[in-house]
């Protein structure tokens, strides 16, 4: 479960990115986080992954209190999250299999566990036959599916996707979002940051709209509010 209570965040340059946000995402939910550029969406992702600390308020993620988490606990908290980025962030000199195995190794998985888990995850994202390919040999949609597989491979409670369809055409975007919905149906909490109104409306899930560091709308069914710009 993710819970933000009266969270405020101000960067060193004086920018107040988050101005008292309170938000709860229950286990197993699928939530779209939408809003215009500079609204504070990315800051929320950074707060959830422990990259930045809030100036005020409390953040709880999967049993960890991020607001006053010790340095030793940050890796443990991050193991409960799977993060997907707009630019995929795959290691080009590693094969698809190695891109997944190195993140399993990084959290102490044994070679046996790795050999068992990776084929399952690649099958889930429909890339079983691309195991030995390098990222540069894959299309954008396939690369993003590898990124999803990488986010899933350590079996996190929550997937956080930051503009996952930003580099994909509409058809691939829809395929990818269907995949995230499928993953959510298997029990993983999914938080998707996006500015693609059509996609948000298509799925009819819970939508949290952020603007100027505030939650201006939190409803189910589709985007409510003004314009959305990436």
């Amino acid at each position, binding site marked *: 479960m993710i819970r933000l209570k009266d969270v405020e965040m101000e960067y060193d340059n004086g920018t107040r990115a988050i101005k008292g946000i309170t938000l709860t995402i229950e286990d197993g939910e699928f939530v779209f986080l939408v809003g215009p550029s500079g609204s504070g969406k990315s800051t929320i992702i950074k707060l959830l992954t422990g990259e930045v600390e809030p100036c005020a308020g409390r953040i709880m993620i999967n049993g960890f209190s991020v607001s006053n988490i010790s340095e030793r606990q940050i890796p*443990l908290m991050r193991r409960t999250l799977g993060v997907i980025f707009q630019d995929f962030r795959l290691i080009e000199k590693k094969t698809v299999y190695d891109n997944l195995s190195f993140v399993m*190794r*990084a959290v102490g998985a044994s070679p046996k566990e790795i050999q068992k888990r990776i084929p399952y995850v690649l099958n889930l994202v429909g890339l079983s036959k691309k195991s030995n390919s390098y990222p540069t040999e894959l299309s954008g949609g396939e690369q993003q599916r590898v990124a999803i597989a*990488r986010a899933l491979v350590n079996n996190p409670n929550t997937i956080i996707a930051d503009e996952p369809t930003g580099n994909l055409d509409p058809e691939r975007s829809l395929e990818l979002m269907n995949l995230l919905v499928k993953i959510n149906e298997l029990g993983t909490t999914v938080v998707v940051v996006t500015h693609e109104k059509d996609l948000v409306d298509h799925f009819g899930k819970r939508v949290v709209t952020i603007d100027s560091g505030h939650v201006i709308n939190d409803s189910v069914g589709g985007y409510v509010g003004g314009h959305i710009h990436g």
Partner: protein
Amino acid sequence: MGKHDFGYFFHEGLSNMFSHGFMSFAAIGITVACLLIMGTFTLVAVNANALLQDLEQENEILAYVDDSYTEEQAKALQSKLEAVPNVASAKFISKEEAMESFAEQYPDESLFQDLDPEIFRDRFAIKITDLHQLSQTAEQVKAVSGIAKVNAYEEIAGGFITVRNVATVVCVALIAILFVVSVFIISNTIKLTTFDRREEIAIMRMVGATNGFIRWPFVYEGFLLGFLSAAIAFFLQWGLYAAVAQGVDTNDTLQLIHIIPFQQLWPAVAGIFAAAGIVIGVGGSLSAIRKFLQV
């Protein structure tokens, strides 16, 4: 993270090392140079020290007794000489014994075989404790009533002391400078690797890898660079030492200098080189990644 995954970290460290071949080569080169210079000066100091100890053990002050003293009177000086500070022992040598000893040194010279003992003086062969105080002790021995003359090889002892002191000072200064340079070069080599792998490190952090897990491959890289440098430096030092030792042994004018065989020194040299190489390598890698992991 459970047990230490030695195989994985070693493989990653080795792969890091080869990913920047030229920088790794430069890092190894400078570390080898550092270790060689350090080793050479240390070995010079060790040999000079050994020679000084030999001199301390073998070098005697010869104190000649006044001609007017009878043998009995001369022998009586022994207790006075042994009371002089820094004198370890004083052995009486009569004129006859001195003549026999002299004749033995020149067995082929018939002229020296029938000498009259009266042309020699009674004397004391005095061993001293600390060679540094040779000249002071010689003066004190000479001041003993009944001692007419003293022979002490102060210049030779002084020469070796100077060599040892210079070697020690140069050695310490060079070690300090080259140690810092080596750590800096290795640190920069590893910084390049961390830069090359920044994306990988960012992903590892994002998925929950501990700092230790991220750090170990770079520590192994530093360890390998340092250890490899130590191994190369050891064999080069061996060759250099053997060549110099042979040169000294075959040179007639350097007969006084006895070089310690490398066979006696190699375990210490290998141990010191390995330790210094590893300290430089691991120190360099820790210095490179310390700041990096705080991001």
